[in-house]
């Protein structure tokens, strides 16, 4: 279907369009025209990705700038889905236009997923694959081969050099599977093909980290031009991604292995001194001159890149006390030993980077400046030594990264040493957390560099929180509601059990037998009335375990077993995926199953329970974070002092976005239906924090229910939903054809005209009124503004 937004022809790959998709595209176009960042919340399962892609592709092809699109998503499967959508879209465009457009769309993921080398691809861990790949593809290895030495090379990588550098893959869209197949056919490395083709792509689809994590972004995304359109999809967790990209945890094991790495390096240096002292001398003289930056052509095979953001890099020569390789090794050793002594402390410590640095200087005479150059110096050393088995130096690299970060940033970071894993533990297992508290630090270069950044997800409410936390101004903030021909999902808040006692997962009463029993009956009842799959979310693994064992004691599990198979998510990914598989099978054959999972776990973030896989979702308790965590406390304090976000506001915002994410799991399209239950007394007051589309569908009468009322409501709802439903019923209401769009446009135009005219006449009237009356009006108006401002403040 083809339609126009203003003067822009948009080709949409489906014959019908949802009204919210149309509104979304209109707003998106406005943002792109104006230039600036925007935050858009669109209900899950309403075709966000396809509307985004079809608008931006149309925009790219229609305007002469051909702005590149960088589409960032969260997981592999989402990237793959987006690529498939893009492929379908381009096919549709080709048939509509009658010719293939010159267009490239590629997706990038880690080497592990894109490797073809027969032995390397069998490795399980990503870091090992990276290291082995590097040892087969690095520049110096190739030089060695040319010198006639016997070293292994990757055939797939070498074949790339035989091709034209700007035409490694033909134009078109390749899914990840597609590029793997193409690579296998033409015997070329898919990973490096994509990496090298990135400057020539119209659309790049990859994970957030390639843009946010400075360690990767510097290498991968450096060449992207300023006018790129950047989209962060599923961005409700983007602040956490930003924070994680600048945070490091160091355990004792890492330190031990780092020591070993340092001694290995020392040995290597000795070897090199006796065999090839010239190379070391060359490196040294380069460092003396401060030439390394110019020479460092940030190659693909670089060991590590600098972990700090490009703005914070020091453009100077390496300080004199780590210029010589052996001095640098002794420097590293001292630093590691210092960290080891810190690890022996038996109480929790939280301190700022400056105080850490002072203590470090008191004890070991390590100054800040050389510490800042640690990562850079290590990279240079590793390159000089031409190390092959790089994975052994992984811990050393971590330490160097930590050193550079701690010496670079003063504000917005905190060091927390936790000697014990939990409160009750007696065996120390110390971990040094170096935590970033400010999400704005990592994302700032992105906002500064690119003119349009679009942040979008199914659950972003409250919208104003994100610009505040990430430190940008949005030209557009919009939340779309869901147009439905029938009420296809039923959100309810259950605050009481059948015995009218309030239910809540708050710490004081969460283990009361009464509350546990009430939750138990809620789950039992819903497993009785709901066909097929039921998903239950708990606030934490700990609570889930305790409540399940209590249910076992009360015989509640036995009752559930009469209706459904019970499956439980665990922290272990493989066990969970097995449970999920079994759950799917059970939903397809038989009476269905019930899945117990955790609101912050893997299931809540990216696994869809469409159609019969999820007919009801229960959220037991508000999924607050563990508030006793030191890191969270530090972050809350930081938010309060710097962004004036109160502790409780942030905690409740965070809890509600996770709850909304859980609820969104069951509704994956307009023909889907499902019951959503929020079972906690506290949800009643937090209702305004739910996304608009959920909030609108919730009736006031359904915000304070007891279990039996909720069950009878759900029963009625499911019965109605079970009636046959033809897609024709939706037409004109929740799906639009071209005619509908035109009608809508015409209506909007008439409306606009009317508004204009009204304003016009109003203006005339205003002139006519006497001055005293005018003042009175003015006063009134002022008062209103006052109120509005107060509302904002409040």
């Amino acid at each position: 279907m083809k339609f126009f937004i203003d003067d822009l022809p948009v080709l949409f790959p489906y014959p019908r369009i949802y009204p919210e998709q149309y509104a979304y595209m209109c707003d998106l176009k406005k943002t792109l025209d104006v230039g600036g960042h925007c935050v858009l919340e669109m209900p899950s399962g309403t075709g966000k990705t396809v509307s985004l892609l079809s608008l931006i592709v149309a925009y790219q092809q229609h305007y002469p700038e051909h702005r590149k699109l960088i589409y960032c998503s969260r997981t592999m499967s989402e990237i793959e889905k987006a690529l498939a959508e893009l492929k379908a879209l381009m096919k549709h465009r080709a048939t509509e236009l009658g010719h293939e457009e010159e267009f490239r769309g590629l997706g990038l993921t880690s080497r592990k997923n894109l490797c073809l080398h027969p032995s390397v691809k069998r490795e399980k861990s990503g870091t090992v694959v990276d290291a082995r790949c590097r040892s087969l593809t690095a520049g110096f290895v190739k030089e060695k081969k040319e010198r006639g030495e016997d070293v292994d090379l990757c055939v797939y990588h070498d074949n790339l050099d035989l091709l034209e550098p700007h035409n490694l893959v033909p134009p078109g869209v390749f899914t990840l599977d597609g590029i793997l197949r193409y690579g296998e056919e033409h015997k070329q490395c898919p990973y490096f093909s994509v990496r090298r083709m990135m400057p020539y792509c119209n659309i790049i689809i990859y994970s957030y980290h390639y843009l946010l994590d400075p360690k990767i972004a510097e290498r991968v995304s450096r060449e992207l031009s300023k006018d790129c359109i950047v989209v962060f999809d599923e961005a409700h967790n983007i602040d956490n991604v930003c924070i994680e990209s600048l945070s490091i945890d160091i355990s004792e094991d890492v330190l031990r292995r780092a020591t070993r790495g340092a001694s290995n390096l020392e040995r290597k240096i000795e070897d090199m001194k006796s065999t090839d002292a010239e190379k070391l001398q060359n490196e040294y003289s380069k460092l003396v001159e401060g030439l390394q930056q110019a020479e460092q052509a940030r190659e693909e095979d670089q060991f590590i890149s600098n972990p700090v953001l490009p703005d914070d890099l020091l453009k100077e020569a390496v300080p004199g006390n780590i210029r010589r390789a052996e001095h640098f090794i002794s420097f590293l050793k001292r630093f590691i030993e210092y960290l080891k002594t810190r690890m022996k402390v038996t109480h929790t410590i939280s301190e700022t980077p400056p105080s850490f640095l002072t203590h470090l200087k008191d004890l070991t005479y390590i100054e800040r400046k050389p510490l800042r150059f640690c990562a850079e110096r290590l990279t240079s050393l590793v390159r000089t030594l031409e190390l092959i088995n790089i994975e052994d130096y992984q811990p050393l690299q971590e330490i160097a990264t930590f050193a550079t970060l701690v010496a670079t940033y003063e504000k917005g970071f905190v060091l927390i040493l936790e000697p014990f894993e939990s409160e009750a533990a007696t065996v120390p297992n110390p971990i040094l957390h170096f935590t970033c508290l400010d999400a704005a630090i990592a994302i700032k270069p992105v906002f500064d560099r690119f003119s349009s950044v679009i942040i979008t997800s199914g659950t972003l409410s409250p919208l104003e929180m994100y610009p505040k936390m990430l430190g940008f101004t949005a030209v557009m903030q919009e939340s779309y509601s869901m147009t439905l021909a029938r009420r296809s999902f039923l959100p309810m808040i259950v605050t009481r059990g059948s015995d009218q006692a309030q239910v809540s997962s708050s710490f004081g009463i969460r283990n009361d037998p009464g509350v546990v029993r009430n939750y138990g009956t809620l789950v039992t009842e819903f497993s009785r009335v709901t066909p097929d799959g039921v998903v239950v979310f708990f606030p934490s693994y700990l609570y889930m375990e305790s409540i399940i064992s209590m249910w076992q004691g009360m015989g509640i599990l036995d009752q559930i077993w009469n209706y459904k198979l019970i499956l439980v998510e665990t922290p272990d990914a493989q066990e969970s995926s097995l449970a999920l598989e079994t759950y799917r099978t059970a939903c397809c054959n038989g009476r269905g199953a019930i899945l117990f999972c955790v609101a912050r776990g893997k299931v809540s973030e990216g696994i869809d329970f469409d159609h019969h896989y999820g007919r009801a979702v229960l959220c037991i308790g508000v999924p607050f974070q563990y508030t006793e965590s030191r890191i969270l406390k530090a972050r809350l304090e930081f938010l309060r002092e710097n962004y004036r976000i109160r502790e409780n506001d942030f905690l409740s915002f965070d809890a509600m976005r996770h709850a909304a994410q859980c609820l969104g799991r069951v509704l994956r399209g307009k023909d889907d239906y499902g019951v959503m239950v929020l079972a906690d007394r506290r949800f009643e007051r937090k209702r305004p924090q739910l996304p608009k589309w959920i909030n609108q569908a919730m009736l006031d009468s359904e915000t304070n229910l007891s279990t039996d009322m909720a069950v009878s409501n759900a029963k009625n709802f499911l019965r109605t939903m079970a009636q046959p439903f033809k897609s024709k019923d939706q037409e004109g209401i929740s799906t639009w054809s071209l005619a509908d769009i035109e009608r809508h446009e015409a209506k909007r135009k008439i409306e606009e005209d009317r508004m204009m005219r009204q304003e016009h006449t109003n203006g005339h009237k205003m002139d006519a009124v006497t001055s005293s009356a005018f003042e009175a009006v003015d006063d009134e108006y002022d008062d209103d503004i006052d109120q509005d401002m107060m509302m904002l403040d409040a």
Partner: protein
Amino acid sequence: MASNIGIDRRDEDEVCPVCKSSRYLNPNMRFLINPECYHKMCESCVDRIFSSGPSSCPVAGCRKTLRKNRFRAQTFEDIGVEREVDIRRRVMHILNRREEEFDGKRAYDDFLEQREEIIANLVSRSDVAKTEAQLQKYATENMASIRTNQKIEEQEATSFHARISLEQEEARMRRQLAREELENERREMHAGREDFLSRLAAGTSSDAASIARESHKVQLRKSSARHSEQDRLRQKQAALRGSELKRGTNLSSVENAGPSDTGLIKGLRKIKTPEPEKPYDPFMGYLPEKRDYVTLQQSYPSQYLDRLRKSTQAAAGGFDLREYYSRTLMEAFAGLGCFVEEEIAERDANRSASAANEGAAMAAVDL
């Protein structure tokens, strides 16, 4: 800073190399080292062997004489690092030049590398005697600058600690303020609601809506007032902090002086001693006593003046002929009726004191 280093409880099978008692049997065992030889032994061994005065190290092959008072607990796990840090402490104490004292970054970097080199020599026990001698020489030559630099460092440390503790105190205050604020807000909201309810109960059904609206308004006004109050407080605090910081920086800027180049360290910045300030000059460089053309002589032959020279009256009245000479000469050369350009050209051409002298004499005669 928190640095109490606890006992590592994991190495339970640690054994004292001297008496072979293990931590398993004696959980309170502490290990000590002596910076003479860095051999580890347990506290009871130290007591046993060294209580009666200095003795030689019990470790086989090491014949160093140790004293009890030098024994101390070990900071780092790795003895090599421990030793290196000890050496470093000593060297850094002596070679404590600061970056400001060097000509440029390059010179400072060279110094840093040289220092590392010295430390590495001492650690690896190569060229110890020579390096030690160098160090000793440097220390005696540059006593003053070492002292001043140490003082600066100390000052920096104390001011840093003061700032940190101030910041912590402030953070604590802010935290408390936030908590109080939350508490107040809650209490006010509660009070407001109660007030609203009681008024509703007292009033008639007709004005219920207006009461509700009013109470809502009151709440909003209160909250906005509170916010503006907070803002004001915060600004005040920020201003205060700024002034504190400024004072801190003032403290740390201390004049440093010392000998410029020393044998050991290259590239030190030449230290210029500032010239002493000149006395105040009201004539901006013009000296009334200075004469370009003449030198004042003791006496000039003149009949007219002879009379005065002899007159006791004039002498008693304090009349000084020299005053008179100088005034007259001044008037004669005051530039009346002469052209400066010509004069200058002339002066440049034949600039000689004798000519001037003659001129002066002639002038005097003419008078």
